[in-house]
């Protein structure tokens, strides 16, 4: 299946751990795994665990507006997107989990 995780939570929260564990489990089951970072979730995009998920095949997106607002410059393996991009992703996947 195609899964989308939306990460909005604060940095260094329990949600970060859950996101990483869920995404790893999704990848290990061979599912298409997308993660979208927005709001305060953006702060977590710079963590090593996210880079590792990207290397294992997770597709990483982020809200460019929130990144700019927070002065965060994601690396090139993360794709700049928007609320409209998120909406299209929601239309393409089977299930959505939001961590907020």
């Amino acid at each position: 299946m195609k899964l989308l995780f939306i990460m909005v939570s604060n940095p260094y929260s329990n949600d970060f751990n859950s996101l990483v564990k869920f995404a790893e489990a999704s990848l290990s089951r061979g599912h298409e795994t997308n993660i979208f970072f927005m709001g305060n979730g953006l702060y977590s995009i710079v963590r090593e665990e996210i880079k590792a998920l990207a290397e294992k095949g997770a597709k990483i997106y982020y809200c460019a507006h929130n990144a700019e607002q927070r002065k965060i410059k994601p690396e090139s393996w993360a794709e700049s997107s928007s609320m409209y991009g998120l909406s299209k992703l929601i239309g393409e996947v089977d299930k959505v989990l939001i961590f907020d």
Partner: protein
Amino acid sequence: MVDTVWIIKRPADFPEADMLEENDMLILIQDAVLRVPYFDNWLAVEEDVKARNIKLPEDKLISYEDVIDIIEKAEKVIVW
């Protein structure tokens, strides 16, 4: 067959009783493992339970992979 999988993160912050259907399933993660729900159909993520040193029946414990499998077969999922 599960209709809605509810992922519960906070202790006792369960969905209102009106929202739950017979075939729904509650899955406890994070600090939600501290309180058992008044709804038979529940499971808890073993890693989150063990991390907090909480004792729950072994047959209620599942892995993150198991949760993904349940989500795949369910009609929908709501992180509550």
